[in-house]
């Protein structure tokens, strides 16, 4: 009997636990030639805002020890262009798609979600497990924009209010993406759960800064940026450990996953699923390698269901 790799998040069933993280996979077409989309547990799109955003001034990225510091600034074409130019291809992909949503105000998040819902129509009842737009990931954790993002994600009351107002307009899977830039990630996760989220994902990037000593100048135009990559793996694992013990809803782990062992750390820490982000930039075969490695580990440890790994931490 082959192992059961499927993941249940609320009513949603994902074919496997390995997704690709928002902001690192564009809208899918960018990686279509390099990554077998049908093998992805879920594709999380680049964040969509109500209006188009050009993004931040350049330079936007700098490499740091085992890390990538970025300040893209939610560059995206806005929800109308997304619906016209990106949605048709996303609906045709052979994997579940989760649309990442961002905004400067609660009204903006709501408007983006309503606009997409109005276009898609209500989700069929039952357990959606096929391709198509199966849910939303709410970005309350971007460190690189002046308004919204982190401003929401560090305040439990705001997270709960935003989550419940979004919950009211969609029956699709609703995931709230949390920031590690807080004192107690458990309280933010509980707020998302109280607001009606089906899951939380953590972590978004950590605030970081790099300086060119010769020039005595910050390396990023926005001075600070968000750190990703292997450097943040232990931070992400700890956040998942804490968040998963604070809530009853599933936790999706991400941050620094480069191989199967990293993903297994997240699953053992309490995650139900994972996302590969910067690891795809470094090697586009990372999501497939991670999935294969989880399968091998399950076989070696006689684990029949990926969902069982969560309880195996000694």
């Amino acid at each position, binding site marked *: 009997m082959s192992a059961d790799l499927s993941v249940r998040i609320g009513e949603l069933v994902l074919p496997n636990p390995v997704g690709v993280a928002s*902001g*690192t*996979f*564009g809208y899918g077409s*960018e*990686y279509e*030639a*390099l990554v077998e989309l049908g093998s992805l547990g879920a594709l999380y799109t*680049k964040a969509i805002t109500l209006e188009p955003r*050009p*993004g931040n*001034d*350049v*330079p*936007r*990225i*700098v*490499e740091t*020890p*085992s*890390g*990538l510091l*970025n300040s*893209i600034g939610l*560059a995206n074409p806005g929800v109308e262009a997304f619906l016209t130019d990106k949605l048709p291809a996303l609906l045709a992909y052979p994997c579940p798609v989760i649309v990442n949503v961002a905004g400067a105000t609660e009204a903006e998040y709501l408007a983006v979600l309503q606009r997409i819902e109005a276009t898609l129509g209500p989700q069929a009842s039952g357990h959606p497990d096929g391709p198509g737009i199966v849910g939303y990931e709410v970005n309350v954790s971007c460190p690189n924009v002046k308004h919204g993002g982190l401003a929401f994600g560090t305040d439990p009351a705001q997270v709960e209010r935003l989550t419940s107002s979004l919950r009211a307009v969609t029956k699709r899977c609703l995931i709230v993406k949390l920031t590690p830039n807080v004192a107690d990630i458990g309280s933010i996760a509980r707020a998302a759960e109280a607001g009606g989220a089906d899951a939380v994902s953590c972590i978004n990037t950590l605030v970081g800064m790099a300086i060119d000593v010769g020039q005595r*100048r*910050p390396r*990023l*135009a*926005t*001075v600070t940026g968000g750190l990703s*990559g*292997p450097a943040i793996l232990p931070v992400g694992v700890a956040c998942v450990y804490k968040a998963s013990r604070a809530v009853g809803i599933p936790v999706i782990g991400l941050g620094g996953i*480069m191989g199967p062992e990293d993903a297994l750390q997240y699953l053992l820490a309490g995650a139900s699923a994972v996302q590969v982000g*910067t690891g*795809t*930039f*470094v*090697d*586009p*075969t990372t999501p497939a390698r991670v999935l294969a490695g989880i399968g091998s580990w399950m076989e070696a440890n006689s684990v029949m269901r990926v969902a069982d790994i969560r309880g195996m931490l000694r």
Partner: protein
Amino acid sequence: MKQFEAEIISNRAVAPGWKELVLSWDKGAGQPEPGQFLSLRVSPRSDPLLRRPFAFSGMSEDGGRVSAIYQVRGPATSILAELAPGSAIDAIGPLGRGFPRPGPGELAILAAGGIGLGPVLFLAKSLAASTLVLGFREASALPRLDLPQGCVTCTDDGSSGFRGKPSEWISRNVPSGLVRLYGCGPAPMLAALAGLAAERSWASSLSAEQWMACGVGACMGCALRRSDGAGYLRACSDGPVFSADAGRPSPVDWNPRRPT
């Protein structure tokens, strides 16, 4: 575009601090065009982390080998410089948009500054006729490569060839007319070439250099400012070559601006 394991055929020094890498090429990836690039993962370790982009400097006649000229400048290129022939390396390519062919009747003027030489040499080999103008700091920086007959060499200090920048040589020696000005080099050189093309109403095709994370258009990290002020273009997938017809401004603002 394809990801595959390439074999290093040779990796020899061609100038102080410069090396020429020759790799086996998987023809299933598609044939590289001048101006396109490949990304290499120089080490399986996590530091340095990201792949690095390298412009093609040539391709063998049978398409089974490609080359890239690179400057040994940081941790990744230092590791690359030590890789011996026979080593395997993780390659993705061809990436980006290359140089367009000259339009009907257009004279091709090719300018390269420093390490921008590679893609310009590849372009020169693919064209029946062109004027090639190469800029270097000084005579000792000239690479030991088979440079095309009749190419113009410029040095900042006049120690070899024309004293000055390629843009200055072109400005003095190329008469106005139907021209496409091609260029690859440091930002100030590209700004000078874009200015010259605008002044003479020449078409231009200029290749950008920028830090990249994904190299395929997904991350938006390699942004360049648009010259019309309407946001940004991606060096990796909108470029790296940005072209403008005669009388049109280059799509990219090449003027280096300090972060505000």
